[in-house]
């Protein structure tokens, strides 16, 4: 019989936890920490002055006037008994002394640090044009309130730059409000960066059928103003669009600059971490005290060739935060990996789009159920003969079946025989464009192939 004492459930030496980023991942991590029995000191630092709120409604219900921008508070699952430092930015980390530096000069000591600083909207690259009245982005509740006020004022035409998920959802809301909208997308179709060619073509048809003036394969070369106000845009095909609002939907920038000098592997693609959410330092050595979760993290995933993944997915932020929280206070052998299959949803033009897996990690796609003509379908994606993703359009309840296939690396194409198939399913190339051809950043990025030359390497002492 063993005389060894059982491993304690939580590591009692962890007394002070600091979470930087008080949004979805930060809040869910704080709750999970308390759930796990952590009773030490917990501090949440957030640059926004508001308590954590939910972003997905900002480009959907909020724009339609069905919910107020400042009303989308995240439901608290349990009291977190934390010290909230809201409206203040974290400006740096001193890993040697285990302190977070705040912009107001304070220093917060930690035994464990969680980085959950997410992303911000990528601004229009020309500062003078970005500063024109009427040029907006959409990431925060404040952004949404501003955009709603503009839409309420009844603009003659809205220009949406970039037809990723956010851009397409904004275009949808504008059409539902009866506003004229022009969408300009550098790539061949809307959503093509996330979903590939087949669904991209479908999305283009849907947008046009809803009266969107959709221009693909085109870029905005300049935003034009008159007396400080936006009046229109010039496009790369030589045409001009008159618009009083432009919403810049060029994807997201990861909030990692504050980590410059920290010695962590932090850069434009996010903060790299292991499967247990422990951050890597700049030498690729895993840290024991610093953890990462949510949009700002990039992590290896075994189902996708151990590629480093960056996800801008609500569900990933929640799942990863829970794993990070668990691992922060658990002794080594009790730590868990974050292996959740990526999942994402979007609502636009009356369609409920839901994705599982990584559609861009594919070479072929097949419509396994329904059809584009019916406006309902399940597209299944495969890479080298196994299922890696599925996207449902108005057919979300079937996804669990395909999730199982992804989890078990089931052969692609999936076997025929579905009740609602129309015709014999034929796999075609998935046509995932090079991300550089898109106006917007992809919300799912495989970041392992290209060695990341942009990482700021800063030597610690």
């Amino acid at each position, binding site marked *: 019989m063993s005389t060894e004492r059982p491993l304690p459930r939580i590591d009692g030496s962890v007394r002070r936890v600091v979470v930087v980023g008080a949004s979805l991942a930060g809040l869910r991590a704080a709750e999970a920490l308390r759930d796990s029995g952590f009773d030490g000191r917990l501090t949440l630092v957030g640059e926004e002055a508001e308590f954590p709120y939910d972003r997905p409604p900002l480009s959907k219900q909020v724009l339609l006037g069905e919910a107020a921008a400042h009303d989308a508070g995240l439901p608290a699952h349990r009291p977190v008994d934390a010290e909230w430092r809201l409206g203040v930015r974290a400006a740096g980390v001193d890993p040697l002394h285990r302190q977070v530096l705040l912009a107001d000069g304070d220093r917060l000591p930690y035994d464990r640090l969680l980085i959950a600083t997410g992303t911000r909207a990528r601004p229009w690259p020309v500062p003078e044009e970005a500063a024109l009245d009427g040029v907006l982005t959409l990431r925060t509740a404040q952004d949404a309130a501003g955009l709603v006020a503009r839409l309420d004022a009844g603009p003659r035409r809205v220009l949406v730059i970039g037809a990723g998920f956010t851009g397409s959802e904004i275009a949808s809301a504008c059409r539902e409000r009866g506003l004229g909208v022009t969408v300009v997308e550098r790539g061949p179709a809307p959503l093509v960066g996330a979903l590939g060619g087949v669904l991209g073509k479908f999305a283009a048809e849907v947008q046009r059928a809803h009266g969107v003036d959709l221009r693909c394969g085109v870029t905005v070369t300049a935003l034009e103003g008159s007396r400080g106000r936006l009046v229109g845009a010039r496009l790369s095909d030589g045409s001009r669009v008159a618009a009083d609002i432009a919403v810049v939907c060029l994807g997201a920038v990861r909030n990692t600059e504050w980590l410059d000098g920290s010695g962590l592997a932090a850069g434009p693609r996010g903060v790299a971490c292991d499967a247990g959410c422990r951050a890597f330092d700049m030498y690729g050595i895993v840290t024991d005290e610093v953890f990462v979760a949510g949009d700002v993290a990039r992590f290896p995933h075994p189902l996708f060739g151990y590629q480093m993944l960056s996800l801008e997915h609500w569900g990933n932020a929640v799942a990863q935060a829970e794993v990070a929280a668990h691992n922060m206070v658990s002794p080594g052998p009790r730590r868990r990996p974050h292996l959740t299959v990526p999942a994402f949803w979007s609502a636009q033009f*009356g369609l409920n789009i839901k994705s599982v897996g990584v559609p861009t990690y594919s070479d072929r796609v097949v419509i*396994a*159920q*329904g059809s584009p003509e*019916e406006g*309902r379908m*399940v597209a299944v994606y495969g890479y080298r003969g196994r299922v890696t993703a599925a996207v449902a359009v*108005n*057919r979300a*309840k*079937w996804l*669990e*079946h395909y999730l*199982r296939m992804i989890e078990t690396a089931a052969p692609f194409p999936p*076997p*025929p*025989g*579905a*009740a*609602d*198939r129309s015709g014999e399913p034929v796999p075609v190339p998935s046509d995932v464009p090079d991300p550089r051809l898109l106006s917007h950043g992809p919300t799912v990025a495989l970041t392992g192939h290209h060695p990341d030359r942009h990482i700021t390497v800063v030597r610690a002492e």
Partner: protein
Amino acid sequence: MSTETLFRRITDYAARPDPYPLYAELREHGVARQEDGSYLVGTYDEVVQLLHDPRISSDAHSRADVDEELLRAEADGMTPAFIGLDDPEHERLRGIAMRPFGPPHSPGRIDALQDDIARIAQELIDGFDGREEVDLVDDFAYPLPVTVIGRLLGIPSGDMGQLRRWTDIVIASLDFDPGEDPAVKRRRGREAGREMADYLGDLAASRRDHPSDDLLSALVGDPGPEGAFRHEELKSTAALLLIAGHETTVNLITNGALTLMRHPEAAARLRNDPGLMPSAVEELLRYEPPVQLLPQRSPLTDIEVAGVTVPRGAPLILVLAAANRDPLRFPEPDRFDPARRDNQHLGFGSGIHSCFGAPLARVEARIALTALLARIGADAHPVEDPPPYRRSPVLRGPRHLLVRH
């Protein structure tokens, strides 16, 4: 013992009070082929997998042994309700029915009923006064959901007795009773179903000109983007909503009351902390689900389940109640734990056919059991345990539950 007769033993009336040992046997055997060519599945993973497999049909026409009676009824113009259809027809009809019932278009309909339900529950409980013994089925668990669904649909209360008689015949026709000729029983069931559907169709038609705020009025009112029901579709859907809208909740409430009397510590905990009731209702749906099995599935192509090939068209019976107690999914599955976490039970099924009325059933069970616990003391107990059960192995629950309180 061979598993060839397992289903016969499960459906045998003697098994009704405690089918769980037979379900354990079923899980041991994986996918169990029966002597009549049907297949039984009762392990959690496999049941979930099949509930989400688009190659599994709920349409009776997909069966190799298509029921003659069904074809005859259809030739007469009867259409099956969405519970017996596959996508895309299933999705279309369910979508039209969902529009006035739940989110996103009608998020408030069930919430708005809460006060009504609480009042009905209280009135029934007030009827316990001065009686030492009550029948929790006849005096409480049955009239509550019947009154609620009647009001929701907008059925005159005087007609509910007739609707009950039709319902009883329809439910009896779904049973597996070796003593009876199944064809005769099914025909009787379909006749009752048709009369009920005709009644509801006439009622709905009368709402077209005189709408009120009930569900039938909404269903014949303005169509949404999914379009409107044809009259035959409206009839079968209304009949489905009526039957499924109370038959199952009766058992949920009765099974719940019985389970709580058998577990006085849990009852005491819930009396002290009514906030635990939503979680307790989920546990009841796992532990004593009102719908024990789904008898009407079949594969559209040969499929492999846990190493067994189930041939196209074979009857496939998914035993939800067995999956709910699979030790591979739920720690200590035979323990009733009102605070159980990670409780993804199959009490409402799962996948595209997952219970349409689940939000209503949850609210009713929560309100009913809370009100009941507040009224009956810690020493309340069944006069007979086990109590006499209803015949059905599918919709399982006590026929009477005499309680001394």
